[in-house]
């Protein structure tokens, strides 16, 4: 089939508003008579709350309402144990204790300073390993240990003991990753208003997952779910992050809005955002790998601890994904992995682009390089030897390469290495490094496979509604959210392609929980994969209705009606035609046909055994390989990333330009992860909370990036498309540390590879 609208780099459907400053983000939305809310945060990482003195603040002119935990009408515990406001004990520095609603932002700011909280300090539980071992000191006293509920995920394949017995070499290595922030440039905003027309509450804001906010707020407010309506504003980036924090903000502002009967707006400062929002979980990965002399991997064991903070609603999902991917894109007969999420009195882990992959891929891809060194093999050869090929079985026992699901790792690794001139560069840099003692050059590889969509994590459903109006204009709504990733443009292209119309007809409205059913969250790079299928389903329903009417009008069989490029005609008899707009008129005015249709996608659950982790983890996979070149000043520790060549198979790109944009953006976040980003904490207090100390890549940090798109045919997704959002980020850190080893002969097992680590060539903190 020749595509008319997809696989083309058309401009964003929401671009005009964004380049003119007209797009309304959360902070730009205001309602008449609104109040401004601000939270009083904990002063300690762990303490008993003895007394909260509100008197002075209450007396301040312009303060309208102050709430504490006592004022929560329904439950004070949301999904993942997150409290709306801490009642008896604060468990980290981001815990809220009271919230002020005032006539202006300034007054709210003043008022929170007047609130005095008396505490009794308790020794915080900060160290993850200690929290695991010591079950006397508990973050949650109703539990028997500090392991997060349902966060232990495992994989058992083959016979691990036997596997290691048959190995010629065995390596044991531990890798560490830090807390990092999504660092979207727009801080979180939520506005809650008493529903103007009925009982209930309406919530607007930078909300990645409107339905989970809806469900949690219903419980907090003691409302029916139908009485809570959530609409997201234009979202200034999220990458998984605008979730738990906006849920808490929505709870707090909703309570205030109902009590005051006025709209209540809460805008986080960058410092509040960095303190209160989720981070990428830090990992401690304890790997053991066994291989034959010829490089064949025979066994991998991995025990992983992922730091959750005091509350967590993601470790149970992220750890599953991690346990599935722990052995990387390699054929391994004997596997034993265990992932545990751990409660601590620190900032907390949540979703951030990649969702366990950036940590896991850093671990396994470092390990493979270490194995190659041990065996005196080239990093490229060891990967080519062990990477999954058609007929192999993944760690979950899933047979790869079945049912038109390609497994092109070998081809991708080869081609990327060739484009990067890998072998020649290895030699060249070796020569260079011999001659230069201070400045060193290095090159490193990493490769990956990534399960597309939720897989066994949940059911990958999605919904979309398409409505054609009288004039032929078309409105699309999805239950999934646009956060900048370009989902709307992809959906609009898919809808136009399915319907046979031009993209210009399409417009999009923001997800509104009251008009489209919850099909699951906008996560796991499933916007195109699952959401696109729902759009196709809706489009097909409408097209079928249109064809029926056209067939009557053109006096021919429905099956021979073609709708293409805004024209409707009989196949092989192009002159027997009707204009698309005219057909719409006939449908609505003459025939009374409904031109609104909902599409629903439900691939069914993936079946996996809980005891062994074995089964089909994902219906299909995406793949990638990156080669990174660096230059190191061994005196100063400065690492310059010169070049990244990365190849990805993400299926057919719906919009090649935007797909590349997703990959470039992901790659640069990956560079930040590998090189500079890290939350510093001391005794449970945050040392980094704004962009002056939490460093992210600026334009000055970008290397020469070359992205190659592969498109190995895969029937699973919509028009052959798969997943793209998360894949870009995960290959950079491992290829970077591998390049660093190549340059300096120092192996770094803890990221980021910042100045200290690079100049001393060892881990400082571990």
């Amino acid at each position: 089939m020749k595509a008319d609208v997809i696989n083309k780099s058309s401009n964003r459907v929401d671009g005009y508003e964004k380049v003119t400053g007209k797009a309304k983000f959360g902070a730009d939305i205001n309602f008449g008579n609104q109040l401004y809310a601000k939270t009083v945060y904990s002063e300690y990482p762990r303490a008993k709350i003895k007394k909260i003195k509100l008197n002075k603040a209450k007396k301040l002119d312009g303060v309208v309402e102050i709430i504490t935990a006592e004022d929560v009408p329904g439950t004070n515990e949301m999904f993942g144990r997150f409290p709306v406001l801490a009642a008896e004990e604060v468990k980290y520095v981001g815990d809220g204790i009271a919230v002020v609603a005032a006539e202006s932002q300034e007054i709210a700011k003043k008022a929170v300073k007047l609130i005095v909280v008396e505490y009794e300090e308790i020794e915080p539980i900060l160290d993850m390993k200690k929290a695991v071992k010591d079950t006397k000191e508990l973050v949650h006293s109703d539990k028997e240990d500090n392991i997060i509920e349902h966060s232990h995920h495992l994989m058992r394949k083959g016979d691990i003991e036997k596997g290691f017995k048959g190995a010629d070499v065995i390596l044991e290595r531990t890798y560490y990753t830090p807390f990092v922030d999504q660092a979207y440039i727009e801080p979180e905003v939520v506005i809650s208003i008493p529903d103007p027309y009925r009982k209930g509450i309406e919530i607007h804001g930078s909300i990645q997952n409107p339905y989970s906010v809806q469900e949690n707020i219903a419980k907090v407010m003691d409302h029916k779910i139908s009485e809570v309506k959530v609409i997201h504003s234009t979202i200034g980036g999220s990458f998984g992050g605008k979730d738990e924090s906006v849920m808490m903000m929505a709870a707090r502002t909703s309570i205030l809005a109902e009590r005051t009967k006025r709209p209540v707006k809460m805008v986080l400062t960058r410092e509040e955002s960095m303190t209160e929002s989720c981070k990428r979980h830090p990992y401690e990965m304890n790997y053991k790998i066994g291989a034959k002399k010829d490089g064949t991997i025979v066994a991998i064991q991995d025990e992983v601890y992922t730091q959750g903070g005091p509350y967590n609603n993601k470790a149970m999902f992220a750890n599953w994904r991690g346990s599935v991917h722990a052995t990387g894109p390699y054929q391994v007969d004997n596997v034993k992995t265990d992932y545990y999420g751990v409660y601590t009195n620190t900032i907390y882990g949540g979703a951030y682009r990649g969702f366990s992959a950036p940590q896991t891929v850093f671990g396994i891809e470092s390990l493979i390089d270490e194995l190659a060194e041990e065996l005196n093999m080239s990093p490229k050869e060891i990967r080519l030897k062990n990477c999954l090929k058609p007929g192999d079985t993944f760690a979950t026992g899933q047979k790869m390469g079945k049912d038109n699901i390609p497994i092109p790792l070998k081809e991708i690794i080869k081609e990327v290495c060739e484009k990067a001139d890998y072998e020649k560069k290895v030699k060249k840099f070796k020569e260079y490094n011999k001659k230069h003692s201070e400045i060193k050059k290095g090159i490193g590889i990493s490769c990956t496979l990534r399960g597309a969509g939720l897989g066994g994590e949940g059911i990958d459903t999605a919904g979309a509604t398409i409505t054609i109006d009288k004039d032929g204009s078309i409105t699309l709504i999805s239950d999934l959210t646009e956060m900048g990733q370009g989902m709307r443009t992809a959906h609009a292209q898919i809808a136009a392609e399915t319907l046979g119309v031009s993209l210009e007809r399409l417009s999009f409205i923001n997800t509104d929980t009251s008009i489209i059913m919850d099909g699951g969250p906008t996560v796991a790079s499933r916007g195109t994969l699952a959401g696109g299928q729902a759009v196709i389903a809706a489009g097909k329903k409408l097209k079928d209705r249109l064809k029926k009417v056209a067939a009557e009008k053109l006096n021919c069989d429905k099956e021979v009606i073609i709708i293409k490029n805004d024209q409707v005609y009989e196949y092989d008899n192009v002159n027997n035609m009707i204009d698309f707009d005219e057909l719409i008129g006939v449908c609505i005015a003459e025939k009374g046909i409904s031109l609104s249709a909902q599409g629903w996608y439900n691939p069914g659950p993936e079946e996996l055994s809980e005891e062994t982790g074995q089964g089909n983890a994902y219906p299909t996979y995406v793949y990638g390989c990156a080669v990174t070149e660096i230059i190191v000043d061994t005196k100063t520790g400065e690492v310059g990333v010169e070049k990244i060549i990365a190849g990805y198979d993400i299926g057919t790109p719906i919009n090649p330009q935007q797909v590349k944009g997703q990959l470039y953006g992901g790659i640069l976040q990956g560079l930040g992860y590998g090189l500079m980003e890290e939350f510093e904490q001391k005794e449970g207090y945050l040392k980094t909370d704004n962009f002056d100390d939490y460093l992210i890549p600026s334009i000055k940090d970008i290397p020469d990036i070359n992205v190659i798109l592969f498109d190995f045919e895969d029937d699973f997704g919509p028009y052959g498309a798969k997943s793209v959002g998360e894949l870009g980020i995960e290959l950079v850190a491992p290829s970077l540390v591998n390049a660093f080893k190549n340059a300096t002969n120092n192996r770094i097992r803890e990221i980021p590879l910042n100045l200290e680590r690079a100049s001393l060539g060892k881990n400082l903190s571990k």
Partner: protein
Amino acid sequence: METLSLEFKVNGQEHKLSVTPNKRLLDVLREDLNLIGVKEGCSVGECGACTVIMDGKIINSCMVLAGQAQNSEILTVEGLEKEEGKLHPLQQAFLDAGAVQCGFCTPGMLMSSYNLLQSNPDPDEEEIKDAIAGNFCRCTGYKQIIDAIKLAAERMNRQS
């Protein structure tokens, strides 16, 4: 409270406002003049989301007090689109080159790029990087932003 009578020109239009002197220029633009294209990302002069042009110079409007804008001439993203639907070549190039994702950094990026092209109509890659080094973008990885600025420069040079 003491107020300040602020007279300045914004996007070609004269304004006379009465504001508190400690109000930031960012708030004056957003709240008093409803120019919501000026964004706030960090409030400490690091992210560049609040970038506007004041008297021909790039400034972070979160770091400038209203009083400092007295008698100045300011250009915000709203001033780039001369009439509804008639985009500045930079705006069009940002769309065409895929330089916009979430769009939160975009107004600031556009202002920094605009200022660059005013003084340097044919910048090379390094000059582009220098010009927007103070504007963070977390979404795009910057590559398509560089492409967009080059494209705009090329189109503008061809026009003139």
